[in-house]
């Protein structure tokens, strides 16, 4: 980094190098010492100061670092003679960026560029600053200056990209594209283009303006030779022709691509689109490289006459036949799948060709039915068939499988495919229970029988027939849903654990276990399997949905905290470094990536999960600190008293959130917060497309974020309101309640009520009704927690506003304190009444956890705030002149509420203790008796028995050493033990939370005794 003549920022390089070395090896103390002595010699050197600031920042002394770097900046500005060298600027830039003060870095470079307008290094630095700030307009202006100065192609393209960014990611109108086009045209006329990426950008600028003809012309001219990969060029040509409406030419191009790469499925679809003049796949630019899997059902075909359609289809068939004849390799599937697609289009056009369609699928099955991807290959085609036809297809496939391959691995593959198609067709629900059971048995038997096929495989390779156990699990879950017999779900767990004993890497089993264990209240075990999947980096964005919702309502705070922290750190790191990577793309002249990177960052910033995680990690902190009002207040202070989240809550409606979750890896029945099939009665389905699950989620999430992000502010206001009310009550010259707090809290309560679907007065009536027993608890619907939170905040607000009228019930005044007490008691003690825990579902437990850690915790904060105000500074004596407190109704209410709350938590703790201390044997008995098949009739246990029988017939020569050894280590008792321990972990954590609350409540009781 040394500049000319061995000088670095005007200082001999030999003096600076040791400092950089110390920084690089993270010896910051040493670096600081060296930097201090350097400063003694060069006290006014901006570079020496910048270095010191850098070290201070790395040591975490941000304030000091900022003041030193500001000093360096001042010196840089003031001293005309001082060197405005690149090293000083870039060092300062690093410090300012790390201090999150991009604006200061930018102004340094702006100043430097003003001083020496033709310095390309400074201009490049300035451009980089604007990239970091996402200031597309200024980026453009700077790049143009550089282009004018140096005349290089790359700077022009920097400007063009900046223009494109204004249009695509900023608020620039499309007219700007004309400007970009003009710049490029002029440059091409005088200097041509030399970079393939420049050409790609040029074409995209034209394409965005629908100037397809011009783009095609350029592509077929000399510039076209910049694209070295022939297929890439043809693909662009085909797309442009199709978008232009020149379908005949488009068809030819796609035909050409298919001749070069006959297995290119997307290209075949485009070929058919062109042939049938269907532009639907090009209409929507956003559908290009979509994040979701594409489901193709609709096609635009109606504009063709019958004759035209027939003749085009016959062309297509001829072409496909030619492709089939030309390709000899037996793994090339596209020309065969193409036939099904042709039949599908015929069906959509209105030809009643169900039979032909099914026949082509059967043919495809005969050729490729043994492949694991067969089902996903044909999945989309099944969508056009009615349920009856699907069932018929299944029959035909089964019939054709009578002639299964003689190669055992192939035969196994074909059998598995049939089972997968059956699962996909979704008619399992119509089978009687005993037949379903047989199906699960058959799957497990097939798995065991075919294990010898995997004898010689490397332990890290996937085994033949692995899918069978996942499928057996799905069937057992279906049986559980139908019969509510706990044994089936336990059996499903055993099947998966058995599979993992043999092959510990099968992630499909682990995902299923995550959901089954979560559902049965063994969340720590679910989390264990989740961790075993090694989910990190971007996978956290796409995969966390499998565990995060369950964790958010659990008592496993430490694990939840890690989960949220790792995820938020990943996302925030990306947001921080994304601009530098964008600049890297600029520097390496990969312009199309510039646009992609910026769009991707925006996509992640709008991630629903990211917003949820941000809100929930703050709420988690609030929960964790709620037993001490002082700690809670410091958390709130860090959260700016909840103001930011309030803004988020207000904005959420106008934000378009992105949903980046990957649902493919998740079975359709797995519970989500929106839908938990396993809790409800059997709905007569055995398959539900995942799109429905996503739709529900997308509709629900903005509402959830809107509601949850109000919480921190409402907690803050409630604490304030409670404290003010006490002072007002008891201090003669006490502060008068702050009308702003009261009115804001009222406003938020009103808002909260609206989110619960009614007006404030109606909401008050509902809580009153439910608390007094006049209304059923059903009135709260699924929003129990939100309603109880509402009641708690209502009480806090009423303390200072006294607006809620208190009707007499049986001659007793019902205060809002009383409402809260009785609601908490009612709901918490209700849930707690569930009996056997080992086979109950975690839903009840998570509800209980939420009740105690949210509304009850917030209510405790209101109490703490009151008590603290009663005892102004610690345990000082009552202030003289205060009114007589001891008989005040407020004091009475507070004492009552403490006692009631404490009683509730003690009950919960007692109940938890009872379950935790239950003997392990008793729990194991429950589990194994649920798996005990009694007599000949229906019931769980058959699959479990098969596994047991298989183990006892363990044949080492047949199975090989690896599998045989693994089988020997299989222990169902160990599985059951871990399951019970897993359930206890969450209970224990919950008990600790309760104990801490009890302690805090007892302390409050004592404090009140002194009042």
């Amino acid at each position: 980094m040394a500049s000319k003549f061995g000088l670095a920022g005007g200082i001999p390089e030999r003096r600076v190098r040791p400092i950089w070395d110390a920084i690089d090896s993270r010896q910051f103390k040493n670096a600081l010492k060296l930097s201090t002595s350097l400063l003694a010699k060069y006290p006014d050197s901006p570079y020496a100061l910048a270095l010191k600031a850098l070290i201070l920042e790395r040591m975490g002394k941000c304030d000091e670092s900022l003041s030193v770097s500001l000093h360096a900046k001042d010196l840089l500005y003031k001293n005309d003679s001082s060197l405005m060298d690149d090293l000083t600027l870039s060092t300062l830039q690093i410090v300012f960026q790390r201090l999150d003060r991009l604006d200061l870095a930018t102004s340094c470079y702006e100043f430097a560029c003003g001083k020496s307008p033709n310095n390309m290094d400074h201009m490049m630095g300035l451009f980089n600053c604007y990239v970091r700030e996402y200031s597309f307009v200024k980026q453009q202006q700077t790049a143009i200056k550089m282009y004018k100065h140096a005349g290089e192609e790359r700077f022009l393209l920097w400007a063009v990209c900046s223009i494109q960014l204004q249009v695509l990611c900023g608020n620039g109108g499309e007219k700007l594209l004309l400007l970009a086009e003009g710049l490029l045209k002029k440059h091409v006329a005088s200097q041509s283009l030399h970079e393939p990426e420049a050409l790609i950008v040029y074409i995209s600028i034209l394409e965005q303006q629908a100037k397809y003809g011009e783009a095609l012309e350029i592509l077929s001219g000399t510039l076209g030779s910049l694209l070295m990969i022939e297929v890439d060029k043809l693909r662009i040509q085909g797309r442009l022709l199709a978008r232009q409406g020149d379908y005949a030419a488009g068809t030819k191009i796609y035909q050409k691509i298919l001749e070069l790469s006959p297995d290119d499925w997307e290209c075949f679809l485009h070929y058919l689109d062109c042939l049938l003049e269907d532009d639907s796949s090009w209409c929507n630019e956003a559908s290009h490289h979509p994040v979701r899997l594409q489901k193709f059902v609709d096609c635009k075909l109606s504009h063709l006459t019958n004759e035209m359609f027939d003749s085009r289809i016959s062309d297509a068939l001829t072409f496909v036949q030619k492709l089939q004849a030309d390709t000899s390799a037996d793994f090339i599937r596209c020309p065969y799948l193409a036939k099904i697609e042709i039949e599908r289009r015929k069906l959509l056009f209105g030809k009643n060709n169900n039979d032909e369609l099914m026949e082509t699928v059967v043919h495809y099955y005969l050729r490729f039915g043994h492949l694991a991807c067969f089902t996903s290959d044909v999945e989309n085609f099944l969508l056009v068939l009615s349920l009856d036809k699907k069932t018929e297809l299944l029959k035909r496939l089964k019939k054709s499988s009578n002639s299964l391959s003689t190669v055992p691995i192939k035969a196994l593959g074909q059998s598995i495919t049939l089972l997968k198609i059956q699962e996909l067709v979704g008619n399992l629900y119509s089978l009687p229970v005993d037949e379903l059971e047989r199906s699960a048995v058959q799957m497990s038997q097939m798995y065991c029988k075919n294990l010898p096929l995997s004898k010689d495989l490397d332990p890290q390779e996937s085994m033949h027939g692995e899918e069978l156990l996942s499928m057996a699990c799905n069937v057992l879950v279906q049986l559980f849903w139908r019969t509510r017999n706990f044994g089936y779900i336990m059996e499903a767990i055993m099947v998966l654990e058995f599979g993992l004993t043999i092959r510990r890497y099968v992630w499909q089993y682990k995902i299923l276990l995550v959901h089954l264990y979560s559902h049965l209240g063994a969340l720590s075990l679910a989390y264990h399997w989740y961790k075993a999947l090694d989910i990190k980096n971007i996978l956290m964005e796409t995969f966390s949905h499998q565990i995060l919702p369950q964790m958010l309502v659990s008592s496993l705070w430490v694990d939840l905290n890690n989960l949220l922290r790792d995820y938020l750190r990943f996302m925030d790191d990306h947001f921080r470094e994304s601009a530098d990577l964008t600049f890297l793309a600029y520097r390496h002249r990969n312009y199309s990536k510039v646009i992609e990177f910026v769009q991707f960052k925006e996509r992640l910033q709008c991630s629903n999960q990211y917003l949820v995680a941000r809100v929930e990690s703050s709420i988690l902190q609030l929960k964790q600190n709620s037993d001490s009002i002082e700690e809670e207040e410091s958390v709130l202070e860090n959260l700016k008293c909840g103001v930011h989240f309030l803004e988020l809550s207000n904005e959420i409606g106008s934000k378009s959130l992105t949903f980046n979750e990957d649902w493919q890896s998740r079975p359709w029945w797995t519970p989500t917060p929106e839908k938990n099939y396993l809790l409800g009665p059997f709905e007569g389905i055995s398959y539900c497309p995942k799109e429905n699950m996503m739709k529900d989620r997308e509709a629900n999430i903005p509402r959830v974020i809107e509601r949850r992000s109000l919480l921190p502010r409402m907690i803050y206001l409630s604490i304030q309101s409670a404290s003010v009310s006490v002072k007002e009550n008891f201090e003669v010259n006490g502060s008068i309640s702050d009308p702003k707090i009261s009115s804001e809290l009222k406003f938020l309560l009103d808002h909260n009520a609206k989110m619960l679907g009614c007006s404030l007065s109606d909401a008050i009536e509902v809580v009153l009704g439910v608390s007094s027993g006049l209304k059923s608890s059903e009135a709260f619907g699924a929003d129990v927690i939100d309603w109880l939170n509402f009641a708690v905040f209502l009480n806090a607000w009423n303390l200072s506003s006294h607006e809620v009228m208190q009707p007499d019930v049986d001659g007793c005044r019902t205060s809002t304190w009383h409402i809260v007490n009785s609601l908490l008691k009612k709901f918490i003690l209700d849930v707690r009444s569930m009996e056997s825990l080992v086979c109950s579902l975690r839903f009840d437990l998570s509800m209980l956890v939420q009740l105690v850690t949210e509304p009850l915790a917030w209510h405790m904060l209101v109490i703490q705030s009151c008590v603290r105000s009663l005892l102004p500074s610690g345990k000082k004596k009552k202030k003289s002149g205060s009114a007589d407190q001891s008989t005040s109704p407020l004091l009475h209410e507070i004492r009552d509420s403490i006692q009631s709350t404490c009683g509730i938590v003690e009950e919960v703790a007692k109940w938890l203790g009872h379950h935790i201390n239950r003997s392990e044997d008793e729990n194991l008995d429950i589990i194994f008796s649920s798996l005990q098949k009694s007599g000949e009739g229906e019931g769980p246990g058959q699959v479990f028995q098969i596994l047991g029988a298989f183990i006892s017939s363990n044949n080492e020569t047949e199975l090989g050493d690896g599998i045989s050894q693994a089988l020997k280590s299989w222990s169902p008792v160990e599985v059951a033990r871990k399951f019970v321990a897993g359930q206890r972990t969450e209970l224990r954590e919950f008990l600790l939370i309760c104990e801490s609350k009890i302690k805090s409540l007892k302390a409050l009781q004592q404090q009140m005794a002194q009042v």
Partner: protein
Amino acid sequence: MATIRRFCCNDLLRFTSVNLDHLTETFNMSFYMTYLARWPDYFHVAEGPGNRIMGYIMGKVEGQGESWHGHVTAVTVSPEYRRQQLAKKLMNLLEDISDKIDKAYFVDLFVRASNTPAIKMYEKLGYVIYRRVLRYYSGEEDGLDMRKALSRDVEKKSIIPLKRPVTPDELEYD
């Protein structure tokens, strides 16, 4: 059956089921994005029907003089699409680009010494074990540096195996 095209950022949101494989590493964002920003022609993805990600390859081109070479950083195929020669197709593409566009001398890759199935596959594709790198993987497992000569290395000098193993700090490139 695969449409092979350049990998793009959105694919990072879609490759979950491929990366759940225990032998497929999920790198941090700057790693992927550096590859995309610098060597987009060396990062390709294969898509199947319904736009499912079947697998992908990421690599780069680097080195000086006769050690100018293509490097395979990762190649992976989802279990559903294995045993269909997809990895071969992806490898051939990268070799082609190294050979024809960048005029490199050879292509190399590192593989865990214990990953027998992968080593066998690379051997089938024409790679030879050039040298062993001691404790290359997290300071524990040895890695094998495998190479395949390209047309520019007429005498196939680049793939003459080294007689002794090397340590990670002796490697010319990361």
